[in-house]
């Protein structure tokens, strides 16, 4: 009985692996059929063949990997800074409800100001180099991390806090032993949300003013109506986002291994 259930679940997993690439294959086939032997459509939409040849060209020249490396570095640095600072701030707000209430409108302000509006100021302050993009990725991610981790700290099961009070734990012990670990789920959720936001922050910075990075590559190519290169840049961003998400999922599995 259990053998047949396990065989069934293995079968359904095999089907799942087969179904994963199906939407992508359908998209590429439809794209190919719509643009094949149609230069005017290819000018606007490019075509799978043109994108493939652009990919080969950009890969062999190293341009794609250099720009992708810059964007990854900016996004990851901003992500790490934003998530770490945000999580520490959010969790520490547990210590004082008064400070949390005072901080609330400021957090909302940071969270709601579009990063596009902040980008010109940040670039003026920090220059057109990598640091301004890291700052934009940081600003894109910090508010989410604060809000999520504060929510986590305030959602601790009351019976855990009661237990710590009864056994005479200090506030620091309660924070270290209960509040921090029980908020990890929320921090991991912030990490998942922040991957996209960090990439967006770095990309916007590169889009506005930069000399390298995928954003810069896409802006330059679109100015030249080189849609194939634009698509290569977009696909590269998607691959980076998926890769970073996989890393966060690995971290989640390690940190939250108790959720069996």
């Amino acid at each position, binding site marked *: 009985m259990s053998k047949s259930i396990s065989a069934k679940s293995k079968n359904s997993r095999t089907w799942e692996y087969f179904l994963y690439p199906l939407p992508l294959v359908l998209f590429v086939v439809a794209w190919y059929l719509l643009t094949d032997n149609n230069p005017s459509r290819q000018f606007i939409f490019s075509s799978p063949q043109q994108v493939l040849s652009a990919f080969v060209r950009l890969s062999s020249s190293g341009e794609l990997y250099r720009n992708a490396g810059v964007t990854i570095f900016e996004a990851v640095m901003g992500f790490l800074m934003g998530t770490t600072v945000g999580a520490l701030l959010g969790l520490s707000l547990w210590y004082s409800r008064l400070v949390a209430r005072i901080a609330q409108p400021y957090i909302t302000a940071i969270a709601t100001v579009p990063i596009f509006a902040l980008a010109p100021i940040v670039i003026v302050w920090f220059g057109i180099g990598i640091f301004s993009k890291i700052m934009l990725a940081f600003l894109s991610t910090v508010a989410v991390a604060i809000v999520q981790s504060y929510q986590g700290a305030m959602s601790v*099961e009351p*019976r*855990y806090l*009661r*237990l*710590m*009070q*009864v*056994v*005479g*734990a200090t506030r620091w*012990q309660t924070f270290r*032993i*209960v509040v921090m*670990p*029980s908020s*990890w789920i929320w921090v991991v959720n912030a990490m998942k949300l922040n991957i996209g936001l960090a990439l967006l922050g770095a990309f916007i910075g590169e889009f506005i003013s930069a000399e390298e990075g995928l954003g810069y590559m896409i802006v330059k190519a679109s100015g030249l109506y080189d849609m194939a290169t634009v698509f290569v840049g977009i696909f590269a961003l998607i691959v980076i986002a998926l890769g970073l998400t996989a890393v966060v999922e690995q971290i989640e599995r390690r940190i*939250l291994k*108790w*959720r*069996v």
Partner: protein
Amino acid sequence: MSTASEHDKNVLKTVLKISGLMFSYATTGNDVNSWALHDLSLTVTEGEIVCILGASGCGKSTLLNVIAGLLPPGAGTIEFSNQSDAAGRIGYIFQNDALFPWRTVGENLLLASEITRTIPKADAGEKIKQHLQTFHLQEKVLRQYPSQLSGGMRQRVSIVQALMFNPELFLLDEPFSALDFYTKLKLEGEFVALVKEQRKAAVLVTHDIEEAVAMADRVLIMSKDGALIAEFQIQPEEGARSPDAARGTAKFAQYYQSIWAELKMVIGQ
């Protein structure tokens, strides 16, 4: 028999002494009608289990929370072995265990040595092994997470966790209500044996009259306005001290009927 019991009380240490306790959830005013606990006095000695029965919402759990220091008393005094400080003297067992799900059972049981810093980890390990044996738990549970254990095992681990703090007084808030009948009987027996052998004291809150009669030395009835209005001394038949054995005796049925009659009046049936 009653003379012997009174004599015992004179020589046994008083673990908990509550006098004229009042508590109100209202933050202002002094209206007697708003008291959740009303002029409540209670003494519990070592080796004694006192059970409190009453209608839902009458203040049974509130009483435990006030004793534990989770809620401040409005008036009256609470003493623990003639001291006013409850820290480190109480083991609180909740209806749903308070084991941290992100820690293994072993890590949960080391909480006492982390908080108090008075028990070296090696000694804590030895103590844990002893307590696990008492509660018929295998050492392999130490590596498991609470979510991998049954409800009964989790409650056993909770009791061991509380024991690691070496409390004088246990507060139990319907600790066995979520367990199946067989597990409940076993745990009741193990807990009663623990209190008697280690001369601890316990205040148990429950809705279950059978559980109260089977486990307690005294059963107290709490009125809807948070006052203790009746007391039943439970004297089990010779050779029927365990909660399981007590359930089969004639005396058990008599106690059950008397307490149920009193409770019906309190509830208003």
